[in-house]
């Protein structure tokens, strides 16, 4: 079992047929972005049509899981029972994603140490056997980029 940061009571993902493959990849600890097979434009969240060339064909591109903090907030009110406060919600700019960002959490960091531009990497939290959530922590010193 992976390290846990949030309780089981956190809201579970709600997925449509379009977004479900993203969560299925996450369950395998693969962070992916949807890529248009016609023009290679990437998009997130997953959507049925490429907004650039309007092609309906797409595949999934795995990204490194590294990135940097684009913006963040330190939240002092719980959403779910048993949640540690405060917690960090952040937007992460993903390396090698074609310029995409995702909403996630920052974990394993003192809120006072967080700044926009902070280099981070993905850490997978296994909420259950078939649900893994990508969260992010500062890039560790011993693993230079």
């Amino acid at each position, binding site marked *: 079992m992976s390290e846990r940061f*949030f*309780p*089981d*009571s*956190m*809201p*579970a*993902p*709600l*997925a*449509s047929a*379009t*977004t*479900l493959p*993203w*969560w299925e990849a996450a369950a395998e600890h693969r962070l992916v972005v949807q890529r248009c097979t016609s023009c290679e434009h990437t*998009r*997130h*969240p997953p959507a049925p049509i490429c*907004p650039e060339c309007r092609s309906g064909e797409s595949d999934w591109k795995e990204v490194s899981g590294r990135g940097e903090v*684009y*913006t*963040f*907030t*330190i*939240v*002092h*009110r*719980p*959403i*779910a*029972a*048993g*949640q540690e406060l*405060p*917690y960090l*919600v952040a*937007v*992460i700019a993903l390396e090698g994603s074609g310029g*995409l*960002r*995702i*909403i*996630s*959490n920052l974990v394993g960091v003192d*809120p006072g140490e967080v700044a*926009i531009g902070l280099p981070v990497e993905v850490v997978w939290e296994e*909420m*259950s*056997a*078939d*649900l893994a*959530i990508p*969260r992010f922590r500062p890039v560790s010193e011993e693993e230079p980029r």
Partner: protein
Amino acid sequence: MSGRKAHIVGVGETRYTRWGKIGDVTEHALACQAIQRAVEDAGLSMDDVDGLASFAEDRNEAVFLAAELGLPALRFANMVWMPGGGGGCAAVSNATMAVETGQAEVVVVYRSLCQGQFFRFGTGGMDATVPADPAPPTVRQADSMMLASLGMAMPYGLLMAAAAYALPTRRHMHLYGTTSEQLGLLAVTFREHASRNPRAVMGGRPMTLEDHQASPMIADPHRLFDCCLESDGACAVVVTTAERARDLDKPGVEVLASEQGAPKGYAFGPFTNANIPDALYATGGCEEMADRLWAKAGLGPGDVDVAQIYDHFTGCVLMQIEDYGFCKRGEGGPFIESGALAWKGGSLPTNTHGGSLSEAYIHGLNHVVEGVRSLRGESTSPVENAEVCLVTSGACVPSSAVLLGRR
């Protein structure tokens, strides 16, 4: 066309309270009350009304209201197709289109909100006091596009608007050096305006910048006093043609221009969309729409005498001020510091009723009501000889705005 140019001829509201305090009347009955008062204020009869419009997934369906209020016929019923407070001015806009095209003669725009009778915003229906379901957490089916969109944000605990809109505000601070004190000054200014307004829920509660800075942190940089109130209440405005307006006792307020919409790729805004273009991320997302609004009216920011700007959070007001061109991008903080928003001596007196931060949170339709009052000379913080008022709806979501004028 000029005889059919849309005017707002009546405004009305029920009592406003803190959320959950109206339990003796249903939310639906409150909607009826607000509509009746607005029609009465207009000097019209319910027999004149043939259209109803609302927004934000209003639970009070027009067809039931029309039957209960005894409308002779319902010729136009409309709900703005987006959730949240972005659609208030769009509902006025839709009413405007209906009367100007002859689809209807008299349309009432309404919003009724009793969060205590339903669920409270910001929780997403979650209750942090209820322990986890013993079943292991797993991905569930989203029943709608909106839930599929929220479904990409909620596993991270992003369900509260105060946290969602902290994200662009934090980035604005990073890019331009905007401070919590500047946001606080905005809240203090609106509270001062509320002090003269007997309808204002926080009218009797003065606030200083020190009070703001000492208020608990909710979602950094949003302190409690950066967040709007949560209220129970209802309000309504009556839209009809210039021709009908001429026959009424009170002066009509002309809808000079109205616009609605969202820029490319915006979707529901930063709440669920991390990929708003970089140039738009630390904005209210209204700049493109504002340009359309000014062009349609043949006016610019310098022509505005008084503004009612949707204030769900202080930072969202600051970013809208920049979006609408009252100052340059990034200069919203110093603009607020200059005292520009103050009723007394400000270059842009804003939220003269106290706004959602201090009057009440009726999803911003109360800002339209105040816009009309400010041009009729009926505001409790009157701006002398005001001829043009900008009213905006929720920013950082698909938004809308109207420019009101007194000739």
